[in-house]
């Protein structure tokens, strides 16, 4: 229990969700959202990676609704080397990832057609735990 609590504290120290990610990054994400209706965004900054491999992850629960097409977009602050990777998971596991390791390709725009309402988990990390600052934004895709 103490071990897990320590990990949690490390996560919170490593990831500063309150960080002042460059406004330009947010604007870049907004432009990628195009005509979709904005719902939420997550700004994350990784300063250092410390002792635990797991410390590089940040997880947020979000509620998604069936019958809705969501557009997820990512933008990185180019001043940092780290590239933001976004993963969406439900109770059973991963639904999507912005990085496909088999083809070593990052996607900054993802469209998710949700058919099951429920709590999902937004997992964010920077590739190879490098220092980075980025924004994940999502909206409802208008038909």
């Amino acid at each position: 229990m103490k071990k897990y609590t320590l990990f949690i504290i490390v996560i919170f120290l490593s990831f500063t969700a309150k960080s002042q990610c460059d406004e330009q990054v947010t604007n870049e994400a907004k432009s990628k959202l195009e005509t979709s209706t904005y719902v939420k965004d997550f700004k994350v900054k990784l300063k250092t990676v410390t002792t635990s491999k797991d410390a590089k992850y940040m997880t947020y629960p979000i509620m998604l609704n069936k019958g809705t097409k969501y557009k997820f977009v990512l933008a990185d602050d180019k001043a940092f080397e780290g590239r933001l990777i976004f993963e969406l998971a439900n109770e059973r596991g991963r639904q999507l990832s912005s990085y496909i390791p088999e083809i070593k390709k990052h996607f900054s725009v993802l469209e998710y057609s949700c058919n099951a309402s429920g709590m999902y988990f937004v997992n964010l990390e920077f590739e190879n735990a490098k220092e980075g600052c980025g924004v994940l934004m999502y909206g409802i895709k208008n038909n």
Partner: protein
Amino acid sequence: MKQMKKITFLTLAAITLFSCGNDTETGDEQDLLNDFAYADSLQKQVVISEEIIEEMIHSIPSPIEMTSLILSSGAKFDEHILNNPDNVEKYVSAHSKALNLGIYGAELGYLNIYEKTMVSVDYISAVRSLAKDLKVDHFFDFQTLKRLASSSDNIDSLINITTQGFSKMDAYLREQNRTKASVLIVTGTFIEGLHIATQIVSKTSNPKITERIGEQKMSLNNLILMLNVYKNDPDVAKLISDFNELKVLYDGVEIITVYGEPITKEVDGMLVIEDQSTSEVKISKETLEKIIMKTKELRNKII
């Protein structure tokens, strides 16, 4: 990794509950500044809990999602179900100001989705008044909002700027260790989104909106968990008691999920994912009617 995340999340929830005992907040209905100062002192005592709230607060859906569904269902706009913007003068304490800021915010979303821009100007003014009192009005460019509201051609910009304003305000409040205010605003948006949906269902019996009402069971549980952090505040304790009565009714709602593997493909450089899972909400007519009544009762205590 997935297992680790689950353990982490459960541990966070456990720490939240554990930390509830450290809450010594009393609240001061007459002095907003004292209330904020008290929230700051609270933060020092329950740092980890406040961090958990930062994560959990995202699990409460944006009112835009509910109102978008209501619009797509073909339901007619009903101004009478909204809180009169003139009521803004009634809200004196920081507690009621924060709750009703959330309520007006949700209503602004409803008005904007239905392109009722002329009416929305009054609601923008109500939001401005409460936001100013809570010292978070700098996240809303009210001149721009009123200009955008002057024409339905700007509706997308109006919706996005308003929603982003609330999002920035929420992040700022948490940065400033005023998480309690943030939780109360989210509580207001949640109950008003539910109120709008239940009032429309009571008149239309729309199955999609009924299902969405049932789905709020998941968010309600998280909301109560967050409110519990401030349970030593008598005003919040009353809210928790009311929300727990709603939760008891929601215990009669069953949500069945059948999981499937998603299908992923690349289309024009974009990753397109089709969810193969399905979910179904089982809610009896009797339970729905009780939820409609309780939501109305709870919301009327707040406005």
